[in-house]
């Protein structure tokens, strides 16, 4: 009888694979069904946004940075605006801070809903996707209401917001929050004690606390592994220290723990949203009073010469930012994010670098899938919530 011959097999997964969340390519070496080695290849979505921003004026950068991490547009533009405002040395009004907190938290819920839906679908729970996208639609409607654009509102501007909140904003957000609490329970009914889901996720894709620290996974992945770090608590910004909320952490570090952390985060975000909504008056200041930075309201542009000149100067030349560099960390849906902004004192950025939590998560992917089964690779990629637009920029 001839001797049984075994060998490893190399499998290319991606770049076009429905579960790689964009164009991530994994070269896997398999021994049977066990993954022996994995090397992620990225760069397929590299669009050179960081180089493009160097040609733009400061306000023109905002639509570009929103398209980096396309599931957390409001968070991106908020992080960018805060870094520029830090360099300008301006302090934004209290009402704007509260609105930014509210919009950032709604964006977190939005991003987590997309994550939960796609992740659920990948491990076989297709109905979760339909449920999550139903509620996400309401959030996109709120974006459309404030800015006329659903995915990339460009509503945050350096110095505040683009315009005041529309009529009916409070009612829309409140009705979403009232509806969403029950819906979140529905999602949990579908997954949290679902035997199939537990079997697919518990003990899968484990990353230890030490590895989470070593790979700088500052965000939900690290919190699921027991690293108690949230920028909102440790380095508060926009008055987060005055809000009452908790930072959920788990210690298991597996796919299921990441699921638990993100669902708990959505509940905490709802708490913050309610507190912020109570503080926001329906009308009031929406930007700083600085004629160099804030464009005048449209009705004045049409009636006053000075306002027209100011409008023309702001939209043709922009404003200058003092030389220096700033990096203001904020807690995005995927973890600490922020923009290293370098200025040479002109009206265009010298360099802008985005801290991409997805890039670091992608780097740590190898750590999580080697030694596991090939079928679990899908569950792990889903659980780290990578957005390839953020990885490649």
């Amino acid at each position, binding site marked *: 009888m001839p001797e049984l011959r075994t060998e490893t097999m190399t499998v290319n997964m991606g770049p076009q694979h429905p579960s790689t969340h964009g164009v991530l390519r994994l070269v896997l070496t398999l021994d049977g069904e066990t993954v022996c080695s994995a090397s992620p290849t990225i*760069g397929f979505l*590299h669009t050179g946004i*960081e180089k493009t921003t160097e040609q733009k004026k400061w306000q023109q950068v905002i639509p570009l940075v929103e398209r980096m991490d396309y599931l957390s547009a409001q968070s991106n533009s908020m992080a960018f605006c805060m870094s520029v405002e830090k360099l300008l040395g301006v302090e934004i009004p209290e009402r704007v801070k509260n609105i930014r907190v509210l919009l950032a938290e709604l964006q977190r819920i939005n991003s987590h809903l997309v994550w939960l839906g796609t992740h659920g679908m990948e491990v076989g729970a297709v109905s979760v996707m339909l449920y999550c996208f139903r509620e996400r639609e309401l959030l996109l409607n709120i974006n459309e209401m404030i800015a006329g654009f659903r995915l990339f509102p460009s509503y945050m501007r350096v110095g505040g917001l683009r315009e005041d909140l529309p009529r009916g904003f409070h009612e829309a957000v409140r009705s979403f929050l009232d509806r969403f609490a029950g819906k979140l329970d529905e999602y949990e009914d579908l997954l949290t004690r679902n035997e199939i889901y537990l079997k697919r996720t518990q003990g899968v894709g484990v990353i230890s606390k030490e590895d989470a*620290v*070593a790979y700088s996974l500052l965000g939900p992945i690290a919190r699921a592994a027991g690293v108690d770090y949230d920028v909102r608590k440790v380095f508060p910004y926009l008055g987060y220290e005055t809000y009452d909320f908790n930072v959920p952490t788990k210690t298991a570090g597996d796919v299921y723990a990441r699921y638990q952390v993100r669902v708990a985060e959505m509940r905490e975000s709802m708490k913050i949203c309610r507190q912020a909504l109570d503080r926001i008056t329906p009308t009031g200041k929406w930007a700083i009073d600085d004629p160099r930075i804030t464009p005048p309201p449209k009705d004045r542009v049409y009636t006053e010469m000075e306002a027209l000149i100011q409008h023309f100067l702001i939209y043709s030349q922009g404003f200058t930012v003092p030389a220096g*560099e700033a990096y203001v*960390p904020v807690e995005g849906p995927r973890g600490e994010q922020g923009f290293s902004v370098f200025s040479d004192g002109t009206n265009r950025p010298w360099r802008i670098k985005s801290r991409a939590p997805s890039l*670091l998560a992608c*780097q740590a992917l190898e750590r999580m899938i080697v030694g596991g089964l090939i079928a679990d690779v899908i569950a792990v990629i889903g659980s780290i919530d990578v957005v390839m637009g953020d990885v490649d920029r």
Partner: protein
Amino acid sequence: MDGSALLALLQQAAPGATIESAPTADVHTTIYVSRDHVVEVARALRDTPELRFAFLAELTAVDLWPREPRFEAVYVLVSIEHRLRLRMKVRLHGADAHVATVSSIWPAANWLEREVWDLFGIVFDGHPDPRRLLMPEDWEGFPLRKDSPVQIRRPPHVTEALQVTQEEFAANLEHDRLTRRR
């Protein structure tokens, strides 16, 4: 802990290194470190019990062309234990853009250094995997350098026509005709 106390502590932990403080606009204490002592200072930052900068939050570079020293490598560090943030910068000359890798101290630096090499052409000595990260492997130049053009206009790639003489052309036709008839 304020900036000067941090600096004194760090100088004590890494006695050989040249460390100078720099002004900053945000929460990060900013220091400049001489190129030859990056690894020593990085290890001191991570391991000194009063500092414990366990996280490398960000590693990037900036090109100050045409000034010299042309490049600055920027490391943003976080210490959760002591709630500290630090920005460590290293000045690099354009003709000699080398700096030692810190990926043995913070494994997260692996891809971040690859990205900086890819986009700026700064070499990280001793890097375990020195390949391009985002750009195609056969890309020429380093796109985020300031002297790299924004819109590259290259002559279009043309494939030259096959050189065939008149006789060979006729012979080919004849051969083709004969084989088809059969």
